[in-house]
């Protein structure tokens, strides 16, 4: 099953189960979504529940706020995460309102948008920056790393109250997989994808796949047994899970697709250093530069080799230096 099909299945099930859900976005109707995630939903639910909008990102979150105040459960699709910045004014307000109106206004809003690089969309449409999004009060940000999580995270998000932002990686739309029947169980915070004892690798979204591949290489080449944590919920962070793993391995590689100052893992780094002083930390992030057009983007974005090298630096070279 393709990633888009898994999202489509989840949307179909959510919208069939609750007729208060509405879907709103650009080209989500007849066209079926720019990434084909909303295929055929217009036929199933009609124009009163599936809205093709003009290019009005500045209104999307406000519409969602109004609709949820009126008793609906809106699901908003924003094409690229760059366009989320157009809606930032309302997104900020939506976050504030979760506390400002207290129990007077119940809102349950899901915002889905694609983000990230590795699909050659050039400097304007390849950003994976999330650091500005966590400044929004009371927001919950999910980032699925595979097909099964894409499905389960959407199903989980509709049950939660508040503002939920789901960042679906562009490159994941080129992957396929199967939906794990028990995938819904492990959705509190992060998940340990691979057990290990020498090294902890923290990643989220598409780079979890790269980290898993890097872990294999590290094990085959150096015998380094690494533990991989997939942050399914990137904000608020499940810090205890990471701390538990790092206490065991004493070494950590933080993998993120955006530049260091635009990400969330810098917060993990701070917290870890507070709890475990003189901890060995390596960061694998994008280089502080524009993401070029075409294949050249790999020069800026982090790669599997970068993760392997970081793990190697921590486990092998540091050991040699200590001798």
């Amino acid at each position, binding site marked *: 099953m393709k990633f888009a099909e898994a999202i489509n299945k989840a949307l179909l099930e959510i919208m069939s189960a609750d007729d*208060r859900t*509405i879907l709103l976005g650009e080209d989500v109707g007849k066209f079926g979504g720019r990434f084909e995630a909303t295929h055929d939903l217009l036929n199933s639910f009609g124009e*009163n*529940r599936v*809205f093709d*909008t*003009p290019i*009005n990102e*500045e*209104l*999307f*979150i*406000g*519409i*969602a*706020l*109004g*609709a*949820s*105040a*009126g*008793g*609906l459960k*809106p699901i908003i699709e924003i094409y690229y995460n760059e366009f989320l910045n157009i809606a930032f*004014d*309302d997104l900020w*307000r939506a976050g504030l*309102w979760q*506390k*400002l*109106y*207290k129990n*007077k*206004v119940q809102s349950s809003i899901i915002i889905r948008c694609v983000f990230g690089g590795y699909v050659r969309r050039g400097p304007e449409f390849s950003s994976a920056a999330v650091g500005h999004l966590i400044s929004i009060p009371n927001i919950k940000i999910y980032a699925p790393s595979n097909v099964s999580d894409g499905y389960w995270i959407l199903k989980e998000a509709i049950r939660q109250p508040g503002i939920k932002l789901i960042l679906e990686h562009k490159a994941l739309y080129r992957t396929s997989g199967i939906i794990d029947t028990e995938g819904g169980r492990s959705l509190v915070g992060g998940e340990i994808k691979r057990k290990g004892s020498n090294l902890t690798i923290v990643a989220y979204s598409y780079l979890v796949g790269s980290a898993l591949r890097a872990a294999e290489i590290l094990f085959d080449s150096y015998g380094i047994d690494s533990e991989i944590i997939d942050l399914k919920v990137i904000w608020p962070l499940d810090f205890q899970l990471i701390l538990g793993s790092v206490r065991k391995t004493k070494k950590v590689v933080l993998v993120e697709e955006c530049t260091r100052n635009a990400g969330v893992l810098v917060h993990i780094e701070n917290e870890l250093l507070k709890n475990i002083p003189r901890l060995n930390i390596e960061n694998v992030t994008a280089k502080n530069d524009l993401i070029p057009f075409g294949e050249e983007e790999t020069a800026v974005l982090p790669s599997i080799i970068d993760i392997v090298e970081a793990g190697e630096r921590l486990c092998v070279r540091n050991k040699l230096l200590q001798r």
Partner: protein
Amino acid sequence: MLRYKSGKLYRVLFRSLGIFVDGNFCLDLYKKMLLVRALESKLEIIFKHNKTQWFIYSVLGQEACGVGVASALTHKEQLLMPLNYRALGYVIGRGFDINHYLKEVLFRTQENESAIFLPKHTLPYSLSLGANFSIGIGAAIANRNLMNDKVCVCVFGDGAATRGTFYSSLNLSALWRLPILWICENNNYAVSTPMEKFNASGDIAIYPKAFGIKTYPVNGNNVADIYITTNIALEYIRTERKPAFIKLDTYRMGPHIIGDRDDYRPLEEKSRWSARDPIRAFRKKLLGYRILNHAKEVSILESIEQEICAIDVWK
């Protein structure tokens, strides 16, 4: 002048826009407008003693808009506007609890520091001008989908109407045939900037017309006209299942915020609009129709005084 017998009382009808309004109801409108003005002058004193937690946006001269629109609203209409931004007319016209309103909006106490005044039949609002348009669209989608026959009444000024969200929201409301009543209080100034400096068209009513929205330009200083037009527009929205737009031409006789330096408007313009004071004009009409007389006026003024004294926030 028409008279008809209702029970034992003779009730007088008031004619506006070719429609007859009940005389006693007109007295009620008059009383509400007076109450707004009296309350504002009281708030002005309190504000100048630095005892409020929020600015007082002057409604002086714009009382008719709030009272006229809000008096036409029932539990089937949802009011959407910043209720602490030039909203005293709407608060009193709609009959919200003034005590509660003042407590939460002006004298925020420690326990409800972050809470916002949100009475029944109002939608959560933003203080950011121009942010409420999309909230109205969302609420109207909810009302349409849940088929509860409610209409969202979104109130804003000519300044907020220059935000881009205004045009895109008008477009969506017409496109999706949403039950929304847009109400623009056009006082020709965005704080200190006059209309001719911020709006090339010079007439807000052009925009809804461009999107095919039924538009009612009304004299915003005539409370009876406003009341009737609001009713007509609500009827239109419910029968035609389309949005409607009311433009109220009025003038802010006071400063933007009480205590502001109000020196950017020509005196000649101010005095011209002072002559069109909505309360004085309405009083003249009521006297002419013999709905109002000296005895009634005294009793109205006394009841207003009592109401203001009964507000316990300044005790």
